[in-house]
């Protein structure tokens, strides 16, 4: 830590960890529902658990991204955050809106639009909150001595993420139009601007950890985010195959979304190449594991598993089945959850001054959570492929198929337990680090 105001990041990370814990709890509720243990049905029916699970994911990732920005931007711009008090207010407001939304979902206060369930009145509060955050970040970059590519890419990602939230707030009578614009938010976030955020954080971590020259890393950052947008923007077409718009999207979406793995492949090759080129002197090996891990697992989860069902001929059968859940879990874990865990692992020793990064617990947390998530992905995949064949090919009734594939959810729950154990160890480490303090300021 070089600037006092970077301490704000810690509290965003702490909120992030709290929401992650809750997300896992609601994941288990759904897992148990699927094997017939529906004891909570009257209080937390599946649709509530599902909305909470996905919204908490978005919220803890955003909280992590914001924390990352508050940590990275002062250091990159060589300037204290312009207004620390406002950053804390923004944090509290973000937490309150989030909690209100999550509580509301338990009382039928929502808009049943996948991933965008937050009701429109609360959406406006989200907008105000995010604008405050952006204002602070952009003002700090503007006031700072340096405007680095890393900080500009990160800020650009955050700015576009905020702008793209708006199309999701418009009401449409027509379900097709509704869906069309909903993907402008959801797809262009996760397969577009969030990759800019991820790329920015990744570049920062690689510069710090590998010691490779900034110019080299930032050049490749441009290439990667370029590939992301070139494939990802028109790749939105893979959501438009079967929702009531024209067949042109089958061609455009098919071709461009098949190119989407290139950006993730680029990211993986880039991270590994920079690691090999670097000096390998940085003592924080845990942060290094998460950094290389996010680059590689995102290629597998988002790149390859996305590719597996993105061609229209395949997607005709897999669209709206558990195959999507298979891809979704490893993609979000690899690309976004792991990058947040990476920046937290990197930042914690610097924020608190406690160098706890060589513990076995941290290593165990990394492997247990990754292997657990991989196991969950396989369980979803097997269930999904079986569902596709039995329901879409053979034509068995939905419920019959669900009973057939129930056993895979037992496996899913076992793997999820392993995953959760890993996360618990990560949380234990997080708590052990304690809170940030000014003694950790290094003026190097």
């Amino acid at each position: 830590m070089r600037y006092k105001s970077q301490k704000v990041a810690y509290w965003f990370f702490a909120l992030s960890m709290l929401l992650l814990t809750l997300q896992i709890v609601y994941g288990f509720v759904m897992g148990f529902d699927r094997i017939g243990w529906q004891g909570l049905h009257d209080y937390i029916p599946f649709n509530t658990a599902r909305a909470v699970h996905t919204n908490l994911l978005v919220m803890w990732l955003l909280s992590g991204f914001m924390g990352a920005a508050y940590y990275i931007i002062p250091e990159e711009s060589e300037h204290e955050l312009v207004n620390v008090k406002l950053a804390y207010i923004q944090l509290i407001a973000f937490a309150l809106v989030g909690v209100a939304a999550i509580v509301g979902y338990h009382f039928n206060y929502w808009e049943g639009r996948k991933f965008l369930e937050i009701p429109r009145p609360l959406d406006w509060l989200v907008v105000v909150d995010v604008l405050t955050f952006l204002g602070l970040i952009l003002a700090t970059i503007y006031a700072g001595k340096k405007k680095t590519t890393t900080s500009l890419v990160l800020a650009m990602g955050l700015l576009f993420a905020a702008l793209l939230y708006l199309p999701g707030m418009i009401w449409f009578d027509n379900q097709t139009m509704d869906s069309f614009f909903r993907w402008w938010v959801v797809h262009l976030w996760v397969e577009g601007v969030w990759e800019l955020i991820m790329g920015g954080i990744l570049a920062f971590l690689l510069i710090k950890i590998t010691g490779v020259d900034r110019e080299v890393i930032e050049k490749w950052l441009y290439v990667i985010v370029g590939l992301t947008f070139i494939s990802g923007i028109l790749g939105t077409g893979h959501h438009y195959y079967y929702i009531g718009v024209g067949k042109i999207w089958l061609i455009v979406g098919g071709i461009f979304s098949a190119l989407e793995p290139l950006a993730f492949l680029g990211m993986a090759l880039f991270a590994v190449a920079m690691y090999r080129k670097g000096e390998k002197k940085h003592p924080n090996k845990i942060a290094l594991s998460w950094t290389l891990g996010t680059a590689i697992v995102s290629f597998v989860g988002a790149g390859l598993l996305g590719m597996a069902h993105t061609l229209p001929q395949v997607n005709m059968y897999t669209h709206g089945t558990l195959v999507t859940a298979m891809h979704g879990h490893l993609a979000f874990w690899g690309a976004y959850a792991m990058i947040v865990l990476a920046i937290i692992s990197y930042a914690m020793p610097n924020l608190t001054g406690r160098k706890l990064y060589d513990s076995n617990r941290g290593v165990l947390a990394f492997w247990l959570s990754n292997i657990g998530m991989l196991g969950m992905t396989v369980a979803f995949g097997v269930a999904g492929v079986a569902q596709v064949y039995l329901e879409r090919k053979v034509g068995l009734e939905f419920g019959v198929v669900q009973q057939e594939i129930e056993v895979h959810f037992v496996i899913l729950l076992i793997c999820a337990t392993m995953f959760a154990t890993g996360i618990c160890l990560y949380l234990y480490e997080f708590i052990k680090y304690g809170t940030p303090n000014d003694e950790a300021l290094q003026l190097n």
Partner: protein
Amino acid sequence: MLSKSQARTFFLGGTAVTFLIFLGLSWNSLSNEVPKQTHPENLTPQVIAGKQLWEANNCMGCHTILGEGAYYAPELTKVVERRGEGYIKAVLMSKEPWQPRGRKMVAYGFSDEQAMQLIEFLKWIGNTDLNGFPPKPDYQQSTQNTTK
């Protein structure tokens, strides 16, 4: 070897070009394709009220529609064709959790009028041209033949 400024041009240029193509295609979809494929002229007040109910109760939190939603309960785009209005109405108006094969649905206990609004919405969506989705099960014929 590629320089940093060339890399930046690649990023900015590529983004601008693909984004413009995307906007053009989207404009074409909304102005030409949606009116033909979704029959917006049939969006009666009842259908719209149905859509509002659909969203207010987060039906997508378990079901899929147009293949979008959760994968806990059946795809409903063609449900009127598949199940008929009577069955759907019974499910929607049930005061006890409907539980086919033990999997519980929330007991919404909708009024007759609300149930009809949702059915009108589902009928409208069932008439949308979805480029062939959901697919017809292609092995069904052969399995039926072998069991005879």
